[in-house]
């Protein structure tokens, strides 16, 4: 009860804090979503992308 009250008093009570928290977490969510999707894509297509098979063809440089 006191925990939920603390959350309410810190985040939800003032609309400015609420909107700011929304924007900050939207920023974090965007980055996290991007990273997660990229990781999943790379693991799903393991061994098929150029960066995985580059070592077989490019020896110099």
């Amino acid at each position, binding site marked *: 009860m006191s925990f*939920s009250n603390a959350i*309410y008093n810190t985040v*939800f009570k003032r609309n400015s804090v609420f909107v700011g928290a*929304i924007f900050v*977490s939207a920023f974090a*969510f965007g980055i996290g979503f991007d990273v997660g999707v990229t990781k999943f894509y790379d693991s799903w297509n393991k061994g098929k992308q150029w960066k995985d098979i580059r070592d077989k063809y490019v020896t110099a440089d």
Partner: protein
Amino acid sequence: MATFQAVKKVVTLSPTVRTLPSGIPFAPLLNTAARAPHDAHGHGAAGPRSDVAPRWVGGISLSSAGLVSKTSTTVSPSVNFQQRFISTSVARKDAPGVPDFSTYRTNPDSNRNLSYFMVGTLGVISASAAKSSVSEFLQSMAASADVLALAKVEVELSSIPEGKNVIIKWRGKPVFIRHRTAAEIEEARASNWQAFRDPQSDEERVKKPEWLVMLGVCTHLGCVPIGEAGDYGGWFCPCHGSHYDISGRARKGPAPLNLEIPQYEFSEVEEKLVIG
């Protein structure tokens, strides 16, 4: 005759032109307090009507002076008289017949937090969706990778001997690269550049003094100047006779500006020049 008159008075009701202070129209022979009997519409009623006052409390009688209304009591004539009002009383909270529903009710505080959390989550998702659509749209206007790859040109500098010009094509335009000798550098730096038409020092125009890189387009009308020609040992535009010196600065003729310097940089220990 008098009786007839009295009877006539009874039948011919006086018009209700006057209103009592209580708001009820004045009608002397109309009993507005009378109610329907509770005995199933009066069929098979036994005994006197409970809502009709007995004769001893008074009533209307006919006399020679007309109708006389006489009341002998001060109490309400009907025995079980109860006036009905529209009830405005509130229900009692501690009514003994109502069960206790408090265990079924949700916690208002945690409910409030959950509601705000849901609203905030929707805001987060829609804000990031809006941001990503805007940034994707802006990225769609940027140059693609193949265009960017064509926009750069690499030149091997070791293949250009000292005192020679090289003309390469970059973005559809000629680019002059001059490997200047020490005497040319000295000449370019010694000139009184403040008095030129487009005053610019040689240090501003080159990144390394031995390498002069310029766009080979005359600033007058866009011809391609000829190298190692002209009055100043630099470039000469054959179209209208503009002379450029060994630093590419306009010295004579109609050209208003010095030859333009593209964006370039030296890479990998001065072996390569990357223009663009």
